[in-house]
């Protein structure tokens, strides 16, 4: 399996989380958020920024919205938050009482959501605890109580010793935690996070992913978070929704997106994949390079239903193997490069057709620029429309 999924956390069904927290007593039920056919067009842009997106986030679920920049993910998030109003479509909230209502035109003030901004949007003229207490101040909570709650929330992110500091004296990671505490202290119905990890350096980012997931899980909040980084999404989210050009391409667990991508874009965005022309037969997927056709079983859950149009096989590094026998048919290629990926080496092999595929090495010691033979490993292969 690719290293991206190597660090995958154990999946937890969202419903269980909710009920477990209910059993813990006191805490209110998490809310559910539904976007229905939401469309948003900016003046002067011929294409809509968000085009008929429907999403449903279960109570207590962590949903990641991924996509390249300009794919409409931030606009979708801002519509969920109430900073933007969609031109058409609805935003529905099922709140802690179980009542469902249309909040499309509700102001952010009234929604009771929490938001963590990309640059955190901490108030630079306030201390750490004043920042965290601000949402409670807006709710008319008395000074002593709100400061106590702010301290508690800061303790939850390990920053209670820095409560009196000015926020500008904090490091990036600490600011991120303050932003999170500020959003969580108001017990938001839904927590929205806009690229919460993008401002951190790579090392810090790794550890903050785990921390973010742990904090969100612990709070039991329903969360929608936007990222352009698939690794962030894989590490934090229960499910991932992928957007491109304002349209929703696929929603599913990280495994579903990896193994059964709905489209070419999803296959290319999630993990590493080579897309080669393929045909689907009853016995499996046939991939032809040059004059050699090889077959592997088709994934049963893969979407491409054989309808009209050309297909492409999604070849992950683990879908291919290097072989050193001449007996069975294989594709010939030259090693164009290799990288060590913790425990195994991945080879980039340029096939005769010019296509480059990545192949899991499995202890195979091929030199760079050497000639190698590549065969399908026999793992089920997904196909997408070419």
């Amino acid at each position: 399996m690719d290293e991206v999924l190597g660090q995958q956390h154990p999946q937890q069904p969202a419903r269980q989380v909710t009920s477990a927290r209910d059993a813990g007593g006191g805490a209110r039920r998490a809310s559910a958020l539904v976007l229905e056919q939401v469309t948003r067009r900016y003046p002067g842009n011929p294409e809509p920024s968000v085009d008929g997106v429907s999403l449903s986030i279960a109570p207590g679920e962590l949903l990641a919205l991924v996509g390249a920049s300009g794919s409409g993910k931030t606009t979708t998030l801002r519509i969920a938050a109430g900073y933007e109003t969609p031109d058409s479509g609805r935003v529905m909230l099922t709140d802690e009482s179980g009542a469902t209502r249309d909040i499309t035109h509700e102001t952010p003030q009234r929604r009771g959501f929490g938001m963590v901004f990309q640059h955190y949007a901490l108030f630079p003229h306030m201390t750490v605890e004043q920042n965290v207490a601000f949402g409670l101040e807006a709710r008319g909570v008395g000074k002593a109580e709100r400061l106590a709650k702010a301290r508690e929330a800061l303790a939850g992110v390990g920053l209670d010793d820095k409560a009196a500091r000015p926020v500008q004296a904090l490091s990036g990671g600490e600011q991120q935690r303050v932003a999170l505490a500020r959003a969580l202290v108001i017990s938001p119905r839904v927590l929205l996070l806009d690229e919460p990890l993008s401002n951190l350096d790579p090392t810090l980012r790794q550890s903050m992913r785990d921390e973010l997931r742990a904090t969100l899980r612990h709070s039991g909040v329903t969360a929608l978070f936007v990222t352009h980084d698939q690794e962030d999404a894989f590490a934090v989210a229960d499910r991932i929704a992928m957007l491109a050009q304002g349209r929703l391409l696929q929603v599913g667990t990280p495994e579903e997106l990896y193994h059964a991508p709905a489209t070419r874009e999803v296959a290319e965005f999630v993990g590493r994949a080579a897309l080669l022309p393929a045909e689907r037969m009853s016995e499996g997927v046939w991939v032809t390079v040059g004059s050699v056709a090889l077959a592997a079983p088709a994934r049963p859950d893969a979407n491409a239903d054989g309808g009209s149009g050309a297909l492409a096989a999604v070849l992950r590094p683990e879908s291919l193997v290097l072989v050193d026998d001449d007996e069975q048919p294989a594709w010939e290629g030259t090693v164009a490069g290799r990288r060590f990926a913790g425990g195994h080496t991945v080879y980039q092999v340029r096939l005769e057709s010019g296509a480059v595929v990545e192949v899991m090495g499995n202890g195979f010691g091929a030199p760079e620029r050497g000639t190698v033979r590549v065969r399908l490993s026999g793992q089920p292969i997904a196909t997408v429309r070419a």
Partner: protein
Amino acid sequence: MMRAARLRRPPGGWATALVAAALLALLLWSVVYPNAAIIVGSFERGLGDWRDFAGSPADRDALWGTVVVSIGSVIGALLIGVPLAFLLSRTEFRGRRVLSAVATLPAALPPLVGVLAFLFLYGESGVVTRAVQHVLGLESAPWTLTGIPAVIFVHAYTMYVYVFLFVSAGLERYDTTLDEAAAGLGASRALTLRRVTLPLLTPSLAGAMLLVFMSALGSFSAPYIFGGGARVLATQILVSKLNGALGLAYVETTVLAVTAVLALLLLRRLEGKRQYSVAGKGRATRQMLRSGTARALLPPLALTLVVLLVLPHLMVVLVSFARDGAWTTQIMPPEYTLDNYRRLATERQLWRPITNSIGMSAAATTANAIVCFAIAYVVVLSRAPGRRAIALLAALPWAIPATAIALGLAATFDRNAPEQLRVLLVGTFWILPLAYFVRNIPLVTSAVEGSLRQMDPTLEDAARGLGASRWLALRRVIIPAARPGLVAGTMLAGVAAVGEFVASVVLYTHASRPISVEILSQIRNTAFGTAAAYSVLLILLVLAITIGARWLEGRFIAGEGVMNAGR
């Protein structure tokens, strides 16, 4: 062979050190010396003049009036400027572009001309006043535009532009996600404004308040024309001088200057206290208002504001075609003619102020460009000894009201006394350019400094390292880097000098009278048409300078025509 007595090379080299020494000498002579002379002069009779000042009811009134006018002007300017800045940067409505375009118009009026326009419009016999009187069928004018309220009214109108520009710029840089964060946390608009937005705009607000306060403190034309019985220090100084009570004038000047410096220090602290770097991507998008009533009311409100803002300019143009002496009790001037302009062009006596203004401001501004570039270079890019002192002295004239500067020059350069470093300039052509030059040193210097600070300081070293001579490095690297600030600063200085009134009215002689002083004497003769024609000419000169500078720089220069301070 020992050469122990050999002088050590100063940091930055001999040439720069020499330039720095020359600049320091020039600043000491033109800025420090005259002001020191004032302070010394105030003690010429021991504490006698100070005792007179303390005992004089007129001076107590003037001091009080100055404080009230200054604070009132700040409040008035804030009340207009802040909402207007928010309205124009945050909301979208019909007429926004037009309102935006004319919002800075009041600052484009030369000081005296603005006051004149108000006189024509809202004075006792002004057009608006008479129209209201006529419509309501009143026996007498519904209001009189005199006293301290009138002065504050005029100041608020002309000086809100500072607040508007500073707050607009602050909002431009403002990270709007902070407001969104507050809203998301449940804060109402009012709470967000009070706890988040306004505190973060403190530097902009303090900067603008400082500018308004300083301008109002030294303001001369509005109190002079509209003051009526009310006194302020700036006008009181001239009264004392004309009465021959020079010692008292020196005391008044000292008090005024000290007040100004104190205010400067106070507001600077406030300004620096809350500087935050904001990193976010504050996409300030203008939004339609949600409330239907507000949406319906905004366009007519905008239209009203546009009319109010354009009216003074239109009025001056209109009156410039009015036949002198014909406009007495009618609402509008009854007869129109081109005579006013024709006389300006043909009568030598009337033409003289025009050539005077152009010549004197050209001389002063040229000197400003050269000297202030040198100051900025020494301060920003050199390590020459004394550069901190130079920076301080170059900023000093900004804190000193124009009347005080003028009186200082009058007190210092009234005789030839080479042993005291005095030359006789009073009564000559050169005293006014010197005053303009001194007044504009801070403006041009800070503009050039701004440009030079944006330049990578290693560029000069890089050029020298590539074998360029000092002159070539200056010409090809430093001057191009300084140019935007130099052009903008020189332009603003030229605009300020060509319409200068406050120092001029203290120092002019009949032969060297500039346009502004001539406007005043035409008003005294109730030759309103001629005064207005001069005013139009002055506006055209300002326009020509602005366009010339834009052409020179080939691009838009922000904040043009705005800094003609010291109304």
